[in-house]
């Protein structure tokens, strides 16, 4: 039984369809990566799941509940969190306020989750009173992930979590993603660092022009010569 199923969706902006029949699933505990060339519709898949792009055909099911075309705050309530690419913190809010915003829909005590995030990212605890805008790119990414964790979600969508980061920080970020996965949170991410991402993912999808091109385990996709030629730089 899959956690998330994306069934044959067609979606896009205005009159233009970006996705032309994408199929996808994420099982419990999995890390799943989406790779593909620019314009393939990778980020659009995430935005569509999250209700930011209108689905014209097909459906999206999360834990037996249809979430097709729900409002973003309703998707969040279903147990799904989304970390957009870049500009994913509130710069004038402190680190702690950013995390509190992650728990906005909760009216109960979330100090346990807050503590869990600080244990995962001890550096964030030290900087909790600083405005998030003053942090480095890698630290901002941690705040953004921490914010997503505040709801104790079953699935997190990460849109290019390593975009614009220095190589040393990229490794750290992939470690962090595995740590989050170790907490029992499934992960669906879009990544440009395809090799590294495939190596750590259970499964992967290769998208091209809004369609599924390949679908396999991370290891098999890495070994696939056609995928290698197309996206992994030989």
């Amino acid at each position, binding site marked *: 039984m899959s956690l998330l199923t994306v069934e044959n969706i067609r979606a896009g902006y205005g009159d233009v369809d970006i996705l032309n029949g994408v199929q996808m699933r994420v099982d419990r505990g999995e890390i799943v990566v989406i790779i593909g060339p620019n314009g393939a519709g990778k980020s659009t898949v995430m935005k569509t799941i999250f209700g930011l792009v209108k689905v014209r055909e097909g459906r999206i099911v999360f834990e037996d509940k249809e979430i097709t075309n729900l409002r973003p*705050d309703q998707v969040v309530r279903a147990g799904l969190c989304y970390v957009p690419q870049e500009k994913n913190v509130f710069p004038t809010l402190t680190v702690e306020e950013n995390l509190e*915003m992650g728990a*906005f829909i909760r009216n109960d005590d979330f100090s346990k989750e807050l503590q869990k995030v600080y244990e995962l990212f001890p550096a964030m605890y030290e900087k909790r009173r600083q405005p998030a805008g003053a942090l480095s790119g890698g630290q901002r990414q941690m705040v953004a992930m921490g914010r997503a964790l505040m709801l104790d979600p079953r699935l997190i969508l990460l849109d290019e979590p390593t975009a614009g980061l220095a190589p040393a920080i990229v490794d750290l970020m992939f470690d962090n993603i595995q740590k989050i996965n170790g907490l029992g949170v499934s992960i669906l991410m879009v990544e440009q660092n395809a090799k590294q991402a495939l190596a750590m993912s259970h499964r992967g999808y290769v998208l091209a022009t809004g369609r599924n091109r390949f679908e396999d385990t991370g290891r098999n996709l890495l070994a696939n010569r056609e995928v290698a030629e197309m996206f992994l730089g030989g």
Partner: protein
Amino acid sequence: MAEFLQLTVYGIVLGSIISLGAIGLSLVYGILRFPHFAHGDLITLGAYLAFVLVTTMGAPVLVALPVGVAGTALAAVAIDQVLYRRLRRVAPVILLISSVGVALILRSAIQLIWGPSNQVYATGIQFPYRFAGVNIKPDHLIIVGGTILLVVALHLFLQKTKVGKAMRAMSDNADLAQVTGIRVNSIIIWTWIIGGGLAAAAGIFLGMDTRLHPVMGWRILLPVFAAAILGGIGRPYGAIIGGLAIGLAQEYSTTVISPSYKPAVAFALMVLMLIVRPTGLFAGRKV
């Protein structure tokens, strides 16, 4: 020296009134991304709603104030939910133009109900206190004290409450606020409650300091805009400083030029700011 101090007193009183208007304008701009041209007429509406209580029940202005504030906040929310809400997805310039329409509707309605002539909350002369040759009227103390109280309350709201923090978050990045699960529409409603309420307080204070007239708010809109831009539009704290700066500049200017040019002083400062530092003193958004 006494004249300078006297102008400083007037400047702080006027600056307090302008600040209250500019805070709301700045909040609305930060969250909804359009300059709200009907803000001046919300100021007028607040003044007249309080006037109803003062004339019909003989209530003191300070008792009428909360009613004027609540009524104006309600009107602002209603205007938003009936009109602006339908225009959320269109270009900001459409919202701007529709707010000019709202301004005209409000002003005409006020004129229709309460007439085109001047009105006052209280007749007769208030005897001022005198300190070292400087006159301070009791109303001045109420205006400045009331403004300080409201600003402190706003500060606590923005820094300590969940809704206040969400307002700052939405002003930072509305798209991110949406995907974080923040209920965008309820935050917008809160923005109008606070923006409309503070505008009403500005109007009531303006009515206490001078008199009521259907275009009182429209006339003060220019200095209010100047204050918001000076402080960095979208930054409510900047709007407070901007308001005081504009108020003081307008009063000091009367020593060199005719008082009828006061609005021109605000306008000149606004243009100067836009040329020299378009983001405002406190680095708000580019206008």
